[in-house]
């Protein structure tokens, strides 16, 4: 059984209420931080823990915190990124639905470390019911003295609010999130200045993912050292993985980083193997934006080592034969799934979600969608396949925010690993309409 740091109490009836949460030891981290620790020592523990951002990029949280500018007389803001819109990702939803007080507790401890007086949880608007769950919990936290003026009789005062988005994947990007929180369109900002220097209302601002902020609770309670003892190498602690696709047990699993991918997919403790006794064809391990890997490369690295659920291992081989842990959105494909169709679907998503500021992304995602559409629908030409690679390259790195990269990588990797399947769609337009290619490398010749 994997050790659980965040979801330990998730199943307890009534855990969404203050009383039950408190009875389970809730808000101890706030007591400890405010009464026994200085803001600097909280920051130190987070650094020691090795915690890395759980929103997708995996940037060390402690280091990010130390970049927050602290000019005199200007407020600083802490923002919780609860936009969760990356296809395949549904873990923050569980945390907030089941453990709203854990997030609040983590945010109080974090705000104390950072010297923030006010924080906002920016949550995707579709999670309407969770807005209410969180606001009920926040009201309870105020009523019990964990939020508001002079918390626990200390000099630390802190206000926390929830504010919803309204349907836009791009608002998960932190500067788009800030724009949206200012009541505007979610157009990402040109950086620098980075939000740590000038973010919300031109104030120094820190944006962290829901899960990152929740992880601060066990780090404060048990110390950074204890957190860093879990996991493997620079992938410390536990990570929530939301698993979906053709598996027997889709759902959210808290794993110790370093778990072998094979065990995650096939063990009954996790995904429980491929549905209907089918074979594994491919996996997108970290949300739709990360490269897709065929079965042999997701289970083992190109060097033949076991692939592990960790930042380093999943990235082993770079973009030639590796992928990324990303947001932990783990999408599994069986032998019946069509890679061309899936790639077209994702490119439609990115085209739909491009904010339109940068031409390479606005136009490029549209072209990708169009070319993939014709390949999938039997009108493709052989040179379309290289055209896809060419367009991806021209988007990648040429945009204000990484949505362009996120749109390019899935296409480039699908062509790299499943070129034969794309070619088959061109060669056999009729057949490819009727049935899928099966396991690319093992398909019978048509």
């Amino acid at each position, binding site marked *: 059984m994997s050790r659980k740091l965040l979801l330990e109490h998730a199943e307890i009836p009534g855990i969404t209420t203050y009383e039950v949460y408190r009875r389970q030891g809730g808000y101890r981290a706030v007591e400890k931080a405010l009464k026994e620790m200085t803001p600097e020592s909280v920051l130190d523990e987070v650094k020691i823990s090795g915690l890395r951002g759980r929103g997708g990029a995996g940037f060390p949280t402690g280091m990010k915190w130390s970049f927050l500018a602290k000019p005199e007389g200007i407020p600083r803001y802490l923002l919780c990124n609860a936009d969760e819109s990356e296809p395949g990702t549904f873990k923050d939803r569980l945390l907030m639905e089941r453990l709203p007080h854990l997030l609040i507790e983590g945010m109080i401890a974090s705000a104390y470390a950072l010297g923030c007086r006010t924080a906002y949880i920016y949550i995707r608007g579709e999670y309407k019911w969770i807005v209410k769950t969180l606001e009920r919990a926040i009201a309870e936290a105020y009523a019990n003295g964990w939020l508001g003026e002079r918390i626990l009789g200390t000099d630390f005062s802190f206000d926390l*609010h929830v504010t919803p988005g309204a349907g836009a994947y791009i608002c998960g990007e932190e500067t788009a999130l800030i724009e949206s929180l200012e009541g505007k369109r979610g157009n990402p900002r040109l950086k620098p200045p980075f939000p740590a220097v000038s973010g919300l209302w031109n104030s120094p601002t820190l944006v962290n993912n829901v899960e990152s902020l929740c992880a601060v609770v066990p780090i404060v309670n048990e110390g950074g050292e204890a957190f860093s003892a879990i996991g493997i190498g620079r992938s410390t602690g536990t990570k929530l993985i939301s698993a979906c696709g053709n598996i027997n047990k889709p759902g959210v699993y808290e794993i110790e980083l370093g778990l072998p991918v094979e065990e995650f997919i096939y063990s009954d403790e996790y995904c429980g193997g491929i549905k209907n006794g089918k074979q594994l064809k491919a996996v997108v391990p970290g949300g739709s934006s990360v490269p897709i890997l065929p079965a042999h490369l997701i289970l083992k690295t190109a060097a033949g080592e076991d692939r592990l659920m960790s930042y380093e291992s999943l990235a082993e081989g770079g973009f030639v034969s590796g992928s990324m842990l990303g947001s932990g959105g783990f999408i599994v494909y069986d032998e019946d799934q069509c890679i061309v169709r899936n790639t077209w679907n994702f490119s439609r998503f990115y085209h739909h979600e491009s904010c339109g500021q940068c031409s390479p992304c606005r136009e490029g995602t549209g072209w990708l969608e169009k070319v993939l559409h014709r390949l999938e629908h039997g009108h493709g030409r052989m040179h379309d396949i290289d055209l896809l690679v060419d367009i991806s390259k021209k988007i990648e790195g040429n945009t204000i925010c990484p949505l362009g990269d996120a749109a390019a990588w899935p296409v480039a990797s699908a062509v790299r690993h499943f070129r034969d399947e794309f070619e088959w769609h061109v060669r056999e337009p009729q057949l490819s309409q009727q049935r899928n290619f099966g396991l690319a490398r093992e398909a019978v010749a048509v």
Partner: protein
Amino acid sequence: MEAVSTKEKNQASFSPETMAEIQRLLPRFPEGRQKSALLRILHLVQEENDGWLSTAVMDRVAEILNIQPIEVYEVATFYTMYNLKPVGKYLLEVCHTGPCAIEGAERLLEYLKQKLAIGIGETTTDGLFTLKTVECMGACGYAPMMQVGEFYHEHLTEAKIDRFLEDCRAGKVALGTWKLG
């Protein structure tokens, strides 16, 4: 967006409950930053205005927040949750992104189209249903899914859809509310 006649303009007015809810939201932001409440206010007034945002409604919001109408329009046109045309009483928002597609979302969409005899973005003649596709809703493990009002309907099947539509017709389906209450 259609031009608004002066007569229509600013005619929208909101219920006391909605106005109270708006007043509750404004102090969450520092003085002079009340525009930050815009997205939430638009959700509230859309709910009150039968699920869509008319120009008159948006103009009234601009007035309340003391901002230019264009600042409201540019937000309303950016985010997919705002409807700029009237919609049916039950807005069926079906996810068709990758993970839901694997689990048959496209088939279900076809089924809904046939059953309701409408296309995507259209409303049934009785004004009850509008069909809309949406992108990943954070329910990929419980696919296929749709959102109706506040609630997610997951692990959808044709049989579940049949039952759901009947329940809607019988007025047995709650839509929830943005108001905290």
